[in-house]
């Protein structure tokens, strides 16, 4: 077996997958140090009628694929699916996945999308790409030929290579079996609806969705299973888990002679658990086996999306960088007409448009812009380093850019990527500045701007801004009152003294529904003050 075709296996066999690669450490796979030489220059550029044909898509794809190969992009096989606008909206509604279980919130999403689309408020995204093997990219029927070329370069080569090679995706998102798993999930939820009623399933899913972001393992790596194995293990698991739960909640009196005070003070779980859904799946006393399985399904799917949430800037930036690079290279080599160039460049310019702060259209940093600029900047640092770059990036300045970029794509997530590669040059170009907003003060403070004193702080703050651990409140399962009313205590550890939003109470009701008994949430500050009880919800009535 040629291991280089299966980097996941290779990595598992070779190195510890959890180990972050040291800076400068390269994958054993060969990345060319520069663009490999082109073939013969075509006599004519590819035709560019507005309306695409399958034949044209194949020709464009072939040209793009050959160029990507010369850049050493390593991808899953591609599957391009041509779909209509309505199907695109369908896909939108089910978080971009080709299959999904049914739930009203997807219907809501669909209705909202449809309405915006019909009113012309929103163009649909040109593409959706699914992290699966083979990698599925949707091409919308309405796109022109030039746009299809853009989508192929962006999704089928940009995103695809990112999915295949970024370490987070390798560790967390199992692209081989995700479609299988979703099919399984849809069927299972469908069966439950038949057996237990739409309403019961809907309520359960509502509750699970409320906690989906708190249903991911941040450290443990999930196992990989095929559809068949998943089905086979289901029954076994149900029986076993139910048994475990029963042991936990047995009501038989314990033998005398034990130190009862020690037991009293013992917490359950012993260590706080940050994966709320996992804790509930394994320990909630009143859940039926099918309910546990649904909790698990939501958890698994949330886990699958976890890397995408952590690599938005990197992922979109990478895809944008590559469609830009690939299509420009093709143009230079005589494959594309001017018309195609103008068309995709105009939509490229829209995508990476970044209105300045204070502008009416400003709504935060555009991840496409940031990511795209950073990869471009890395390439610049490699090719034309300034004195400043040599000081800041001694390990990549002046080295071949392809391996440097490849390394930057593989081994980071947004937070560490920005922390490592955001250069002073780019901070100046984007004119970044940091605002310190302390609710206890009257005014906002400008803490740092793009100058010599501010670079490091800016970089640190921006990096933090993309840290999921900072963006989302830190909530853990703290204790269960095993001896009394079985009340579950969650603990919110305040970061920078940020409170929870008001709808925490609503979420807590969902937790109580899953847990089956009372639930309370307490909040504790960084500096170890006594916890404050925020909300408390009584046991849901059956």
């Amino acid at each position, binding site marked *: 077996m040629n291991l280089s075709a299966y980097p996941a296996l290779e990595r598992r066999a070779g190195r510890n997958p959890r180990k972050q690669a040291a800076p400068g450490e390269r994958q054993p796979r060969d990345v060319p140090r520069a663009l490999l030489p082109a073939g013969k220059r075509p006599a004519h550029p590819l035709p560019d009628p507005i309306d695409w044909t399958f034949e044209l898509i194949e020709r464009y*794809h072939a040209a793009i694929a050959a160029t*990507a190969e010369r850049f050493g992009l390593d991808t899953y*096989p591609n*599957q*391009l*699916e*041509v*779909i*209509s606008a309505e*199907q695109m909206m*369908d896909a939108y*509604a*089910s978080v971009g996945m080709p299959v999904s279980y*049914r*739930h009203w*919130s997807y*219907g*809501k999403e669909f*209705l*909202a999308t449809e*309405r915006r689309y019909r009113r012309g408020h929103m163009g649909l995204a040109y593409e959706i790409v699914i992290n699966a093997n*083979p990698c599925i990219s949707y091409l919308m029927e309405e796109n022109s030929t030039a746009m299809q070329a853009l989508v192929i370069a962006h999704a089928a080569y940009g995103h695809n290579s990112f999915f295949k090679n970024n370490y987070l995706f390798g560790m967390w998102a199992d692209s081989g079996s995700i479609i299988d798993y979703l099919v399984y999930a849809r069927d299972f939820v469908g069966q439950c609806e038949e057996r237990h009623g*739409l309403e019961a399933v*809907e309520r359960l899913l509502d509750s699970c969705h409320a*906690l*989906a972001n708190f249903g991911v393992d941040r450290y443990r790596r999930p196992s990989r299973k095929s559809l068949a194995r998943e089905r086979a293990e289901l029954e076994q698991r149900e029986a076993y888990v139910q048994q475990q739960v029963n042991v936990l909640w047995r009501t038989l009196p314990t033998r005398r002679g034990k130190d009862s005070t020690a037991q009293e003070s013992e917490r359950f779980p012993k260590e706080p658990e940050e994966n709320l859904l996992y804790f509930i799946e394994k320990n909630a006393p009143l859940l039926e086996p099918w309910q546990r399985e649904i909790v698990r399904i939501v958890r698994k799917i949330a886990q699958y999306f976890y890397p995408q949430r952590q690599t938005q800037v990197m992922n979109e930036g990478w895809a944008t960088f590559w469609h830009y690079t690939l299509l420009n290279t093709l143009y230079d080599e005589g494959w594309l007409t001017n018309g195609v160039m103008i068309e995709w460049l105009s939509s490229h310019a829209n995508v990476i448009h970044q209105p300045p*702060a*204070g*502008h009416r259209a*400003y*709504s935060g*940093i555009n991840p496409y*812009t940031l990511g795209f600029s950073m990869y471009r900047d890395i390439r610049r640092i490699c090719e034309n380093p300034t004195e400043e770059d040599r000081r800041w990036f001694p390990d990549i300045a002046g080295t071949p850019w392809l391996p440097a970029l490849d390394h930057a794509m593989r081994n980071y997530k947004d937070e560490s990527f920005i922390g490592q590669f955001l250069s002073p040059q780019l901070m100046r170009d*984007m*004119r*970044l500045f940091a*605002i310190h*907003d302390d*609710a206890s003060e*009257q*005014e*906002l*403070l*400008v*803490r740092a*701007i793009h*100058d010599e004193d501010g670079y490091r702080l*800016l970089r640190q703050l921006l990096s*933090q801004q993309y840290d999921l651990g900072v*963006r*989302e*409140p830190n909530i853990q399962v703290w204790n269960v009152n095993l001896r009394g009313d079985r009340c579950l205590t969650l603990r*919110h550890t*305040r970061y*920078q003294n*940020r409170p*929870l*939003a008001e*709808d925490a109470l*609503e979420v807590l009701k969902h937790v109580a529904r899953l847990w089956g008994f009372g639930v309370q949430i307490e909040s504790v500050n960084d500096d170890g003050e006594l916890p404050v009880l925020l909300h408390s919800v009584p046991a849901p009535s059956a």
Partner: protein
Amino acid sequence: MALQIIDRRLAGKNKSVGNRERFVRRYKQQIAEAVRRAVARRDIRHIEQAENITIPRKDISEPVFHHGPGGIRDTVHPGNSDHVRGDRIARPQGGAGGAGSQASDGGEAEDDFTFTLTREEFMQLFFEDLALPRLLRTHLGDTPQYRTRRAGYSHDGTPHNLALLRTMRGALGRRIALTKASHRELLALQAQLKALPATEDGTSEAVAELRRRIDALSTRIGKVAFLDPLDLRFRNRARLPVPTSQAVMFCVMDVSGSMDQGRKDLAKRFFILLYLFLTRHYEKIDIVFIRHHTQAAEVGEDEFFHSTESGGTVVSSALALLDQIMRARYPVQDWNIYVAQASDGDNFGNDSGSCRSLLADRILPLVRYFAYVQVAQEAQNLWEEYSRLPPLFPHFAMRKVSEPGEIYPVFRDLFKKEGVSV
């Protein structure tokens, strides 16, 4: 590099239908409420249309744990124009894209959630839980209705009804039956041929004979048709007469001079609802339109709703005509008879008394349900006369309506399914 292009355009449209249904089901109450409001607002002509439904955003939000406002936040923004380190900026109000406001997840003011209900969904919600009261379904009508159902297989039929599995099974059976003996013989002969001593060089008489017989048998087997017309089986469908409920609805509308534009509008609204309801929910129903001023006339649907003829008022003329038509065309043993009457209650002289007696003596004993809607608030003499009927006839209902908004609730009230609260 490996590539696969799949054209999915024709496959699986509307994958979200199930999700949409679930959404509508979940917010049925709010949606039904919006539907009612919408109908009251609508122009008569546009009652039967899609509708934009708006649901308060807070009702459909999905809560998650997230940070609320407050605490300390450090955010980085692009496009610095004139700030230097240490600047203090006033806190922007309302987070309207100001430099300091973070694009928070959920903090912005959000519009209510609006979406479009399709015509079908709209009408379905609109007439949900309504039914013709006391409809009997026991009767085999003059023109019996048939339902086709599967009834085994037959030897002839049209090609699209061909039962392939059955046909092929039959063919297989026939082939086995016709060739079994020959096959057995063939095997025996082949065994004989093989068993001949090795010295045989294949030219002797015995071999030739065996070969000849084998060939003959093979030809015979080969001649048995793979598929014979005998094998063909077709799915058979039998037509069964089913008991149907024949129903007729008499719509009696007052178009006299006292009915001003507003009142006519109310009456028409009522009948349009009735008409839509009947045509949507009952496949086969007769509707008789009667309009009257001093004289009554049976008219077509179009004229009923759109004609502008007018005059004085003699309500009994309409009831007499109704009685006449009913007895002539809709024998009570064959028909479920319904009457809906709308009037402003203003009647000529002592005609109201004769109306009442006409109803009590001749009409009400024959009809299943009689709904009277008065499209004016003040009590008129017709209302007073009619008021004496309900105690005697439980299937006589009367309501007053004075505003378009009341039409729909009254309509629902009159035609609600039994056991369903409005």
